[in-house]
């Protein structure tokens, strides 16, 4: 792959001075790929955590116990009304400082690394939005529909799994897509705690090659393509799950 494009980008550098070093230098190329891989893994982990929190939180919001509902409401208020970067720094430096270190056979490493803290912090941030998104999806499921299942003998659990969840998920897909795209962008904050994702990799490259504008362009392009892919995938999912004739 690199062999194919390297001559072109080398000539581009020689003739115009535009230095896209990852496209001809194998070391920078591997740094770019590594950064992209970590970025995608990070986003996937963050989205997964935020979805799990969203489902659990939306369930907890319907709890009969007032303190439970109260905790969910407080969680949502706190994490939606403070900047995600403050949350990230709080988790990494605040909680990170008091989590135990593990013996790695001679040297010590924190039990949760920067990648782990980024997943936790941004996942919890995204989850606070997902709770509200799932809740509105669940609320959009007509009582009449769940009542029909109830009168056919479905238990509450079966109603939730087979009726409420599949319908709520469809109803909230558009809002969920927005939040996932937003989380993919927010994941770039992990840069500030030195998670070796794309921004971090590129910053390594530009400090070695002094090609900041070119790498910035690359970074922009990366996110544009990534977001387009996510949006496309979600649109496909939406089409696949669409209910024929419904809502027309």
């Amino acid at each position, binding site marked *: 792959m690199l062999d194919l494009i390297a001559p072109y980008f080398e000539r581009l550098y020689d003739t115009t001075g535009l230095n896209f070093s990852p496209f001809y230098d194998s070391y920078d190329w591997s740094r770019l790929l590594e950064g992209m891989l970590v970025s995608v893994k990070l986003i996937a982990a963050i989205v997964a955590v935020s979805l799990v929190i969203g489902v659990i939180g939306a369930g907890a919001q319907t709890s009969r116990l007032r303190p439970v509902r109260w905790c969910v409401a407080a969680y949502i208020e706190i994490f939606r009304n403070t900047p995600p970067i403050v949350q990230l720094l709080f988790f990494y430096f605040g909680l990170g400082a008091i989590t135990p270190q593990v013996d790695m056979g001679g040297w010590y490493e924190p039990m949760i690394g920067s990648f782990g803290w980024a997943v936790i912090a941004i996942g919890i941030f995204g989850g606070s939005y997902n709770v509200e998104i799932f809740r509105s999806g669940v609320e959009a499921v007509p009582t009449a529909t769940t009542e029909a299942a109830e009168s056919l003998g479905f238990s509450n659990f079966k109603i939730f799994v087979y009726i409420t969840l599949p*319908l709520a998920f469809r109803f909230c897909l558009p809002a969920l897509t927005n939040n996932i795209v937003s989380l993919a962008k927010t994941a770039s904050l992990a840069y500030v705690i030195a998670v070796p994702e794309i921004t971090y990799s590129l910053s390594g490259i530009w400090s070695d090659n002094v090609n900041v504008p070119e790498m910035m362009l690359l970074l922009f392009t990366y996110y544009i393509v990534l977001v387009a892919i996510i949006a496309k995938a979600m649109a496909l999912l939406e089409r696949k799950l669409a*209910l024929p004739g419904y809502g027309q």
Partner: protein
Amino acid sequence: MTPSENWTPDQPIVALRDVHKSFGTFEVLKGIDLTVMKGEVVCIIGPSGSGKSTLIRTINGLTPVTRGSVQVEGQEVHDGNLDKLALRRKVGIVFQQYNLFPHRTVLQNVMMAPLLVLRENRKEVEARARELLAKVQLHGKENAYPAELSGGQQQRVAIARSLCMRPDVMLFDEVTAALDPETVGEVLLTIKQLAADGMTCILVTHEMGFAREISDRVYFTDAGRICESGPPASLFDNPQDPRTQEFLSKVL
């Protein structure tokens, strides 16, 4: 819910005694007495807001009663120890708005409860579901989604869905009220066949001609009470209660 020890088929299959229901301070049912024998077809008529839906929903336990007794095959419905599942497999209900599962095909709608709730064999359930769909004239619509069907077709799916649980009693709550006039007939025909097959049916309806034709007994309700009941001929042709007279003069 195994039928209570001392219930025999010659006793009422559904029996309501002095049923009261309040929503907050608003009393919707003010002492309802009603008994239905196995194989009987009973219609409940009355002005809207008189508590007909509430009444019919107490029979399968969807709406809890405030006071009084509801028994199905001798078993008290509003009793903490009731096996809800056993009640629901005995009593089917069809609603005004069909309430099908929009994310499942017609066939899946009909098969879901026997598969998930009764855990019956898939092949048997599917054969039964297809047979029921053919019976309600929906052959060929098995793989359609509810929203692709007309109201009358959806309502017939809802009937088939209830019947697939093989209930002993069917409740119908104004099942033609939301339908276009031209599809009302097909749904009424389905119910008529069901009644002819010996199914015990309790219907809330505004179709007076249909009520007169199909029922063994008609109940007229107003403001949470049963004002008058009797065989359709006498209730429709010779109503005794002034409220029944007034209601019938408006709707007939």
